[in-house]
């Protein structure tokens, strides 16, 4: 219980989760709460933000706020699917490599290192461009299939350090089967690492998918924030000074990415206590009379709470 409180007392995590919650709400309710149909053409061509169109309209008079609201679902679903699939592969490869050791470990690590070094975005572009129909889910799976290596690497390192710990050895001496050792002893101790890997992959997946939409590889009829930027770029929004067309969509992507990064910081601070003290604000440290100094980790007794 106390640990959970600590997690939520971290300002970064709370901010990140709040932003995530907001976008999730948009993704779920999108089509019902958007003021217009995102494809509905109107007379107000390329009009700046007004009372009728809060974020203005594009070159055929479509409402941009509606496009952003409806597009949230596409972004989040792809992020989630890609994140889950990449994490599953990463855990499988990483934990297996760390646990079996020997030749199996060598070859699995070599495999994940290869995937790390080969630039992912060109690979994703290459695959997506040759698929007959690169819809959202296909793209998500392609991203998942190419983006698991980072998680696998971290997972392997962590498993290696866990494998020889006393509690695992004790369970082994008790005659537990290998799959039980992995599932009941090792995996629970990897939760934080898996979570942070998942969040990182989702961030990467969102950026990749938006980029693919922006360069027009995924069908432009499927709304997501990258599609909005695709239309803006191809209809010279920059040259026409239509800032309301490309600023909000990009800001949403940045905000979502920032929220995910903040959550990841929170997880990192839980895993690495040395980073934790910096989660407190400089001012609150000073108020409590703690002078941050190089070489020492300020320890705060928080037994009261």
């Amino acid at each position, binding site marked *: 219980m106390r640990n959970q409180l600590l997690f939520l007392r971290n300002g970064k995590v709370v901010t990140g989760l709040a932003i995530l919650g907001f976008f999730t709400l948009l993704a779920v309710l999108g089509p019902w709460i958007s003021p217009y149909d995102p494809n509905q053409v109107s007379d107000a061509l390329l009009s700046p933000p007004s009372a009728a169109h809060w974020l203005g309209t594009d070159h055929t008079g479509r409402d941009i706020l509606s496009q952003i609201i409806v597009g949230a679902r596409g972004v989040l679903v792809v992020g989630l699917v890609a994140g889950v699939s990449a994490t599953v592969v990463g855990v499988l490869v990483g934990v297996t490599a760390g646990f079996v050791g020997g030749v199996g470990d060598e070859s699995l690590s*070599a495999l994940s*290192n*290869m995937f*790390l*070094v*080969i*630039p*992912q*975005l*060109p*690979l994703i*572009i*290459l*695959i997506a*461009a*040759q*698929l*007959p129909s690169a819809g959202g889910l296909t793209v998500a799976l392609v991203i998942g299939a190419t983006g698991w290596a980072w998680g696998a690497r971290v997972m392997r390192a962590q498993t290696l350090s866990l494998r020889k710990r006393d509690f695992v050895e004790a369970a082994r001496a008790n005659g537990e089967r290998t799959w039980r050792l992995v599932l009941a002893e090792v995996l629970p101790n990897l939760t934080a690492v898996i979570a942070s890997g998942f969040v990182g992959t989702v*961030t990467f997946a969102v*950026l990749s998918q938006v*980029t693919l939409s*922006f*360069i*027009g*590889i995924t069908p432009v009829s499927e709304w997501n924030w990258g599609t909005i*930027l695709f239309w*803006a*770029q191809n209809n010279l929004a*920059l*040259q026409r*000074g239509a*800032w309301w067309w*490309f600023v909000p*969509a*990009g800001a949403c*992507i*940045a*905000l*979502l*990415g*920032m929220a*995910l*990064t*903040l959550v990841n*910081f929170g997880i*990192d601070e839980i895993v*690495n206590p*040395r*980073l934790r*003290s*910096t989660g*407190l*604000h*400089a001012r609150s*440290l000073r108020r409590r009379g703690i002078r*941050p100094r*190089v*070489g*020492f980790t*300020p320890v705060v007794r928080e037994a009261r709470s």
Partner: protein
Amino acid sequence: MSFLLRRVAFYALTAWAAITINFFIPRLLPGDPVTALLGRMQGRIDSNAEHSLRVLFGLDQDTTLWQQYLDYWGLLLRGDLGLSFTHFPTPVSEIVDQSLPWTVGLVGVATVIAFVIGSLIGTFLGWRRGTWADGLLPVATFFQAVPYFWLGLITIAVLSVNLGWFPSSGSYDRGLVPAFTGEFIGSVVYYGFLPALTVVLSSVAGWVLGMRNMMVTVSSEDYVTVAHAKGLAERQVMLGYAARNAVLPQVSSFALSLGFVVGGTLIMEMVFSYQGIGYTLYQAVSTHDYPLMQGCFLVITLSVLVANMVADLAYALLDPRTRTEDR
């Protein structure tokens, strides 16, 4: 020495894997776009070039997969990547040859600048953690989360369209003839400034955050405390003791982030119509020029591998432990 040998072996293996992936992708994916294009080119394409395209895309159904694979390697070793459909009948290798130096220049300069600036800022932030300097972290987080191309759009909108300081597209003044003259180089720098600026802006945050976290970890090591106890100047402890050790993981993560930076730069070239390999890839994708696409991927991957090898070499020079470690 064994460290270097193992790394070279690893990169050779990775290069082989990338080439093999490139071989299998058009064969495994459904649909057969190249046959249709070949049909349209009938008569205009000479039989030799048609043969290499058939080999590259696996259209030779009467030979075994193994034979196709051998033929494919034969073509690559001769530097034959097929003919481009859009720039018919220019060979892909020629187009790639022309665009690669632009990308290497852009990525190289921007990455080095971002690495140096980012590590310096990170050193400072890590050293002064728990003070006002921590307030810069959310800013860094924001820049890390911004997609490269969007930052590119914003800089074009502000610095190029509104203020008119820089050109919004191209890589040099079209009125000039490419040559090693001061005027031409000046023009290249002038046109390259915005793309480089955006790459630096969006990649610097990663270096800042990585360096800061390493500084936080390193600064509680014993040797830093000893350096303090010896009464060395704070500056000297910060740069000569803490930062010197904290920068090592930065160098080794250089390799991993390079692929990401290159990906971002490719997109940046598309936004700025900068005539590098990313823009070529973009054109290939939008005109369904499959041979050019495949060639671009191959060349990008191999260049990243070479860059990684250089980074590894630098790491071995910087960190003596890798040289003595016999594993």
